[in-house]
């Protein structure tokens, strides 16, 4: 018998993450205060920037889309007992798939191009996760180490490909040739003027679909059952006749495919070209998103929205409150990641004590 009862479910899935975010904002507020700015005003600006007007909402949705894919790429692996740090590299390589198919068939109507971009982004991303998966399953190389290293390999390989192969002559910036307008994934603003010129595009629907599919896969499919058995008790999974090697490889490939969708959103939907370092840390934010969302698709959606708002609101803040520098916004974002991701369980034991004491008091 353990000394303390676990937290009630509502406290675990809702109270704890909310407390973490509040704590991060409190400390962020102190920093804002320390540089002589009004933290309440800053929060107001951020909220307005993220949700106050159409284009702002569009930007928030765009970031959210990225973070949903990156978050699912971590969450799915987590259910199988693996820690996929490689979302960043998988998304980057996914970008190669997207741009290759788009440039090869440049000019194809987007209705046909969109599914092709999804397919190739998924395939390339999956390939980049498949290798660490095989190394883990067949050779025992730890997935955390290999996926981290594969991020570096992806960066180097992509730098080479973009600057030496894809970059057209006479272009100064490090990027590929552009995709023609007709082949690009339409922005939401083209259907609803509310979103204005914001980068939110139809990829957001793919993100919603991915959330639903992941939910079904994890809790309503035999594969998900096997995945969770493996993640929660590998010896029992073996007892149940579940092949660990097979599960690890397939799960990693699925995660890579999800990460590859980040590239569809960015390359196919916004930039219309492959830009050097376009992933820009979204893959790493996915780790915090997955942990804050407790690996559940609904949680992933909500925490992705939080981070999306934080990113967009932060940009707005840097723009309209010059006293708060861009670095300070990164600091606040980092605080949220720190408190919800890395230190997500810091308040768990104090909370458990609190609930324990209350339960004991109630029992007497």
């Amino acid at each position, binding site marked *: *018998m*353990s*000394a*303390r*009862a676990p937290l009630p479910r509502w406290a675990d899935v809702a109270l704890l993450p909310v407390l973490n975010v509040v704590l991060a904002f409190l400390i962020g507020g102190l920093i804002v205060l320390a540089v002589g700015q009004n933290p309440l005003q800053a929060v107001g600006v951020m909220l307005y920037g993220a949700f106050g007007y159409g284009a702002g909402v569009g930007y928030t949705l765009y970031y959210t889309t990225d973070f949903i894919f990156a978050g699912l790429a971590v969450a799915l692996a987590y259910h199988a007992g693996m820690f996929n740090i490689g979302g960043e590299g998988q998304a980057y390589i996914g970008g190669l798939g997207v741009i290759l198919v788009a440039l090869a068939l440049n000019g194809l109507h987007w209705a046909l191009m969109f599914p092709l971009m999804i397919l190739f982004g998924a395939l390339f991303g999956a390939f980049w996760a498949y290798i660490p998966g095989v190394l883990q399953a067949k050779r025992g190389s730890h997935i955390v180490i290999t996926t981290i290293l594969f991020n570096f390999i992806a960066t180097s390989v992509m730098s080479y490909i973009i600057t030496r192969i894809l970059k057209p002559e006479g272009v100064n910036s490090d990027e590929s040739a552009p995709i023609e307008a007709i082949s690009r994934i339409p922005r939401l603003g083209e259907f609803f003027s509310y979103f204005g010129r914001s980068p939110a595009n139809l990829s957001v629907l793919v993100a919603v679909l991915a959330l639903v599919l992941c939910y079904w896969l994890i809790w*309503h*499919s*035999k*594969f*998900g*059952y*096997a995945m*969770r*058995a493996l993640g*929660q*008790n590998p*010896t*029992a*999974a*073996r*007892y*149940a*006749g*579940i*092949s*660990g*090697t*097979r599960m690890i490889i397939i799960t990693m490939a699925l995660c890579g495919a999800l990460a590859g969708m980040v590239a569809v959103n960015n390359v196919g939907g916004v930039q219309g070209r492959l830009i050097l370092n376009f992933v820009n840390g979204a893959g790493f934010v996915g780790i915090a998103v997955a942990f804050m969302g407790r690996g559940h698709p609904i949680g992933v959606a909500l925490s992705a929205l939080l981070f999306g708002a934080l990113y967009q609101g932060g940009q707005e803040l840097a723009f309209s409150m010059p006293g708060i520098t861009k670095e300070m916004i990164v600091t606040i974002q980092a605080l949220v990641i720190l408190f919800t991701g890395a230190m997500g369980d810091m308040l768990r034991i104090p909370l458990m004590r609190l609930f*324990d004491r209350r*339960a*004991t008091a109630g*029992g*007497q």
Partner: protein
Amino acid sequence: MANTTQTQRLEAAAADAPAIELRGINKHFGAVHANKDIDLVVKRGTVHGIVGENGAGKSTLMSILYGFYTADSGEILVNGQRHDITDSRHALALGIGMVHQHFMLVENFSVLENVVLGAEDSPLLGRTLAHAREQMAGLARDYGLEVDPDALIEDLSVGQQQRVEILKALYRGAEILILDEPTGVLTPAEADHLFRILKTLRDEGKTIILITHKLREIMAITDEVSVMRQGAMVTTIETARTSPAELAEAMVGRRVLLRVDKSPAKPAEVRLEVKDLVVADDFGIPRVKNVSFSVRSGEIVGIAGVSGNGQSELLEAITGMRERRAGAIVLNGVPLELEGDAAAADAREAGIAHVPEDRHRLGLVTTFQEWENAILGYQRKYGPGLALDIGAAKRAARGHIEKFDIRPPDPELKTANFSGGNQQKIVLAREMERDPDVLVIGQPTRGVDIGAIEFIHNEIIRMRDAGKAVLLVSVELDEVRSLSDRILVMFDGHIVGEADPASADEGELGLLMAGVTREGRSPAAGADAPAPSQDVSDKDAEP
């Protein structure tokens, strides 16, 4: 040895202040009332047994006494003085020592180093060690606690490791010794040796609290016994004035049949055949060495042996959990391949059901809901294609719950929240309800309450009578003897003997389990014989 009778001893002890007195101890864990208003008096210089089912609150009570938990209310008196025991250091200072069920030893340290660990009295170890060596020699002389002070723990037998635990407590000046399920891992000979040590300790004036669920041990060694049930203290009684049946009834709260009732076996055709099987462990060391036997339809073949002599690896090989190195596993005349990390599925498909020895590690995903575990290993049968038919799985789970009386009857409850006995029933129901040809069962009643043991034993007999071939492995010799129709004894990876449970006596089986045959050492007990054989060299193990 004991010159005084038990009654004399109790009378003498009653004159003194009791070694331990607990008054009105209460402890809650959330909504669970683990200890309800417990009163307990342990007289000085006696062996006091505490029995009860799992979850009865024995361990909680002892943890409070040893300072792991703090009671919500109540008083602890040690030698008549009231103390609020805050941690185990405090308990030790009061002369209370504990020998845990799972030993707390550093495997690659020597016995001496383990004994002084945490009790070093100067920064330089030399003096402490020399002092400890002297003390240990004294303790060995006084209590028969002989262990080589320079041996590494990992080279010692389980029984010897336990002696080191006792030495540790005594070295720290323990006058009151708590032992938690001390014989679970011992051979009968080792258990007898332990009891002799405990009797000597008692005669020298130490007080011993023995937590166990084995009533035979209570009868054999204790002076008084306390029975706990569902967090409450039911009774404390002089051992001489009670009987195992009475104690069992007090523990469970109803009458329990301690003997297994079964009709003679009617063995028919051979179902499972194992031929020259060789299986290695994770480190590549052979644990099963050229084992051959067969199990017929309608019989229970029991494998007796001290744990760690290859039984686990044997079961794992037969059920596809571990690849064999050589030999054949034949089911209904067809050799099974059983290769790859999904081989358990092949074994199951072929008709071998498996109740694993360690249900927490293997048989259950304890974080799953009950219904998810009710289909573990059979998940492919639920639902078409990729989809999992959750409705069908829950229906199956409800069927199991009803038939095996699994409590609480909630298929959506997390499996970790079921008691040990009910968890075991979840596994048994799952494996038995598949109508397998062969049922392989490891430790069917490990950590299971007395009430559930009766039920589980009857279910195993029912499977046999339904024409299944049952292969049973248990470290409980009583269990193997009462259930099996044939007993195979395993030692050091070999089957060293076969016995008829009706005629074999315990001493003979015990010697076989320790690797000694009537003709002397078995050929199996070679140079690489595992630790248990070392105990046999002690004078007490000779016939």
